[in-house]
């Protein structure tokens, strides 16, 4: 590799040298010619000095700008410019051309919705149909890769279905203004962003439509059991920029992300795996808050922790991109299908643990 680079350099150098010999020889020809003329008295010495000087500086300039640099630099920059241009031309987020305001009491209907990620053959969602009534508290359950997170992203119009329709109160989701749609949801995603901003900003970016309301920030922190941070609202998070910045533990970050979803007046809550880093006590508290805040609003939660799932109104079980079961906890247990299987795996262990206790 190293010798290859050296060879490449030497080759380019040799080419340059040959080019130089050529140009210098033509300069030499004219220089001799003009000098001869001057010596013969046909030209003034000053003119000669001017001519030779001009020739040398001209050939240097021509070589430098035209031959070497422009060709070399163009071959270097043109691909960069092209790729930047194609970046600028890449598709923007969906156009916000809907007119309707998102309703206060939304009923969400999926009608034969199928979806594949761009460039993938496999369907992530396959002919999914369901209705979530307004104010309903819903849980999505299923194995890893069943399409739960994708379903949420479709509701928030990060992607559009390949076929089928998503309706809000009977109108196609596209008829609603994108801004009004997205700001209607209080969201907490699986992947938690740890922003280096102030604590109060970190919560209030959950709703930027209104100026930061400190009382509400405190309330949201309280809801997720982070009220110990109440006194530090103006402190910066992380020590990235401030030496006295606050460093949080994994569980605290997750609860902060939840506070963001709970902050502000959202019409619906969407939580994706909100408790993966939380201990049982914090988890229980989050599930209770979700249930409480859902009342009158409605919400959707994804969780593998069935202890939190069972208290919701309606459970939807996804497998391989299809909706295979839905209903209340009791109904699904009676059905004795996929959900019951998942539930029993966990219940067995607790039963065993409690039985040992009683022995």
């Amino acid at each position, binding site marked *: 590799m190293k010798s290859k680079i050296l060879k490449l350099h030497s080759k380019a*150098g040799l080419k340059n*040298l040959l080019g*130089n*010999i050529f140009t*210098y020889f033509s*300069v*030499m020809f004219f*220089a001799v010619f003009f*000098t001869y003329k*001057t*010596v013969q008295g046909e030209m003034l*010495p000053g003119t*000669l*000095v001017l001519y030779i000087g001009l020739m040398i500086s001209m050939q240097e300039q021509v070589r430098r700008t035209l031959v070497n640099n422009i060709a070399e630099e163009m071959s270097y920059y043109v691909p960069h410019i092209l790729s930047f241009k194609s970046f600028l031309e890449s598709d923007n987020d969906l156009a916000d051309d809907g007119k309707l305001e998102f309703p206060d009491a939304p009923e969400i209907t999926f009608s034969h919705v199928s979806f594949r990620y761009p460039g993938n053959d496999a369907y992530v969602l396959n002919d999914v149909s369901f209705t979530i009534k307004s104010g309903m508290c819903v849980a999505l359950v*299923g*194995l*890893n*890769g069943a399409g739960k997170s994708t379903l949420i992203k479709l509701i*928030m119009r*990060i992607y559009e279905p390949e076929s089928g329709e998503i309706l809000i109160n009977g109108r196609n989701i596209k008829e609603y203004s994108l*801004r009004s749609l*997205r*700001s209607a*949801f209080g*969201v907490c*995603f*699986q992947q938690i*962003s740890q*922003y*280096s*901003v102030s604590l109060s*900003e970190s919560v209030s970016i959950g*709703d*930027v439509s209104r100026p930061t309301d400190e009382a509400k920030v405190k309330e949201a922190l309280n809801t997720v059991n982070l009220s110990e941070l109440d006194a530090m609202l103006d402190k910066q998070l992380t*020590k990235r*920029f401030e*030496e006295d910045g606050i*460093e949080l*533990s*994994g569980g605290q970050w997750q609860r902060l992300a939840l506070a963001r979803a709970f902050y502000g007046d959202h019409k619906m809550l969407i939580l994706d795996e909100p408790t*993966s*880093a*939380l201990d*049982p006590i*914090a988890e*229980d508290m989050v599930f209770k808050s979700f249930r409480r805040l859902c009342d009158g609003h409605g919400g959707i939660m994804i969780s*593998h922790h*069935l*202890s939190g799932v*069972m208290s919701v109104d309606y459970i939807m079980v996804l497998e391989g991109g299809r909706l295979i079961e839905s209903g209340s906890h009791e109904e699904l247990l009676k059905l004795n299908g996929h959900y019951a299987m*998942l539930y029993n*795996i*966990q219940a067995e*262990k*607790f*039963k*065993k*643990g409690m039985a*040992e*206790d009683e022995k």
Partner: protein
Amino acid sequence: MKNKLQKLASVARNIAFSTKLAYRSAPTLLIVSSIVFMVVSVIPYLPLFIWKNVVNEVVAKFSGTSEKTVGYVLTLVIFYVLSLLLQCAVKQINSIVTTRYDAEIKYHIDNFCVEKMAKIKYSYYDDPVFADKMSYANRIMYDILDVSTVLKNVLYSLTQLVISGIILGRFALWIIPIILVLCIPRYMIKLKMSDEDRKFEQKYEKSERKRDYYYGLFFGAERLEIMLYGIKDFFLGKYNREWKNRNDAYDKKNLKQLGLQILSSLVVTVSDIIFYIRLAYSALKRLIGVGDITYYVSILSSFTTASIDIVDSVITLNDISENLDYIRDVLTLDSTNESGGKERVSGDEICIEFEDVSFRYHCSERDVLRHCSFKITDKEKIGIVGENGTGKSTILKLLLRLYEPTSGRILLNGKNIAEYDLGEYRKVYGAMFQESVDYSMSARENIIISDLEKAACENNDDCVNEAARRSRLGEIISAWEGGLDTQLTKRFDENGRELSGGQWKRFGLARTYYKDSKEILLDEPSASLDPVCEHEIFTEFTEVSNDKGAVMITHRIFNLIDMHRILVLSDGRIAEDGSHRELMNKGGIYANMFRLQADKYV
């Protein structure tokens, strides 16, 4: 004065440091490039000298006062152009050699840094202050290279200064002190400006990092939230404010410096004016030829340029030296292998004991662990539970000697773990941490990197497949066309596989199982796994760890029922220690946590 001397000494030390590094990295190239460089600095005088004679002869011939033949004059012209060609060729050779030399040095600096970073103590990594320092040092690392460039420039200018000084001195010695004296105010002005520049850079260093950070958010995983929360303007506003503040201050500083800059250039031209008057006078008196005028003008300009360049180089060197202090600071941070003894782990049994261990992270005011004492006997399986932030992961990190206890001792088979040879000691453990590590390599490589020694001794994939099977990856991998050779992630390979969080977690487990360790350490192995996968993995874990010891941290406490013992951490202390049944009977924190969940199921 003493300060100045100290500074001078530090500059000298830094020059020695980088020269030594350069010489050790590429001795031949350094010598060759220095020789070529010397030639480059001498050669410009050849065409200058010939040109002087050409003009003198042509003028003489023109006015009919010369005895030389026309052929002689024309030959001079040919030699003049040839000397220009030679100068150009030497410059090109120099650029080839220099490019090659730079690449070689970069290659060595990179190697040098990677070696150092790999050895540096782990505790430096999660200390934000040191992390900043390291990232800054990384950014300015190539300043080591700049030292040799500046030194070369000084050498070049010195050669120019001597040669043109000699030529100039023979014509008018008195001009030399004038030029040199005039350089002093320039030096002072430049020094002041460079100080101001450096202070500016330092002041806005944080602002630059902030800009990088806000800008990077739009290209990272945060994009999703930025889109959904509609917080583009929130971060863009912060980004633009940083730019505006910096640019306003920059303009202000430059405006202030503009006057000084013009002044420093004016000072130098004074000597030019004096010299030109003198030249014109001599030429009119016919003391020198016409060719001599152009000749001396060029010589004067090269002398002035050389002295200015030396002044500027000294200032640059001063600047770089400050940065080098920083780099050397980082490079001299403690290495892990410098601490620790030579003992080897002997015997098949493993017995671990924490003796009154307390720990506090660097720069923190709070003890994470307080007076923890417990024992793990051979092949014992231990679960650790506790609320977030109670120091569970820290126990594993202390055990792996990523940190040292602030007080107390950790013993392995009765000996303080610090007495063991670090490499040998770590072979005892196979560990998986909470954050899964994703390598853009093949599936096989992703598994075997936990024990490359073992991989080198094997000529089939049996153990790799076994590890994959145990972590429930067997079916996934065999469904891929490339099998174990499949590349993970699309970073380098368009056909590479992108994995879900749960799948990466399973690769982490496979890595842990592949290594022949006596003790398995797992930190939240099931956090993002679905119930079926979680169940399978814990069943398999029980089997794998049958003939091994294991320590597992998890919030999913129903997986710990079969553990020999469970440690409950609360506020950095071991609050409870016993089997599931014992702790349930005790009715403490553990029983509380367990019932909280179990009540929903039973």
